């Protein structure tokens, strides 16, 4: 089993990078790998609850909850999230809140790091 840390900086809507990161995390977890997900930049707007799933847009809430149930650690950059109006009262439960050192600490103990930059 390997440890994979994925940094996601792209938005939920606007590209398929975010969607790709979640699907990759899911596949890696299914293969028995430990996965850490870090949201920063526009990705930090994604852990908001109450998302409406429209067919034309990527949808983050259900996949995120499913990943949390699989034991994937998901953390959002607090400053990036609150700047986008996402705070602990309207966020998906189970998502961690921390600063950028969380990402660096997870990188420290990772076998592989996949950094998916923003737009």
């Amino acid at each position, binding site marked *: 089993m390997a440890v994979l840390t994925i940094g996601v900086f792209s938005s939920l809507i606007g590209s398929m990078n975010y969607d790709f990161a979640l699907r990759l995390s899911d596949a890696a977890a299914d293969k028995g790998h430990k996965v850490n997900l870090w949201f920063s*930049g526009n990705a930090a707007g994604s852990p908001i609850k109450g998302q409406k799933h429209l067919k034309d847009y990527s949808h983050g809430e259900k996949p995120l909850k499913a990943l949390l149930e699989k034991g994937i650690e998901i953390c959002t950059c607090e400053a990036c999230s609150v700047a986008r109006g996402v705070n602990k009262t309207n966020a998906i439960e189970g998502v961690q809140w921390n600063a950028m*050192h969380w990402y*660096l*600490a997870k*990188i420290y103990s990772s076998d592989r*790091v996949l950094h998916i*930059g*923003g*737009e």
Partner: protein
Amino acid sequence: MADIKLAFIVQRLPYKSENPKLAATHAMAYQTVEILLEDGQTITPALCYIGEGVLNCVKDQKAMDIYGITSTEMHFKSCLLVDMDVYVCKDDLEKFGISEDRIADAEDMGADKKVQIVPFEAIQKVMNTANHLLFF
């Protein structure tokens, strides 16, 4: 392994996206990551500006006056202030016609560290010795 080397590679323009700033802030987090690591475990970042990313390093940016936000230059200088290795690609500066005296430093903030303007080959060496690469 006691020390992990991270190379933060900035190749995007300033202000068009927030990525260059995020590169600097994530790199600076090496100063506080020890609270989450064991004794003896360290992270050593290197911040490298290449391609259009070198435009982040030009001094006298007026972001506060124009956008009301801290400038990318301030982030750049803060990295020097916390003794980070900061590299700017000399080849790309030449491509844009930017002379080295237009590149910011943090001497006015009291930084001992100097920006290192180096050929791309030197940046490749930094990348080759890093444990992980993070492209912004």
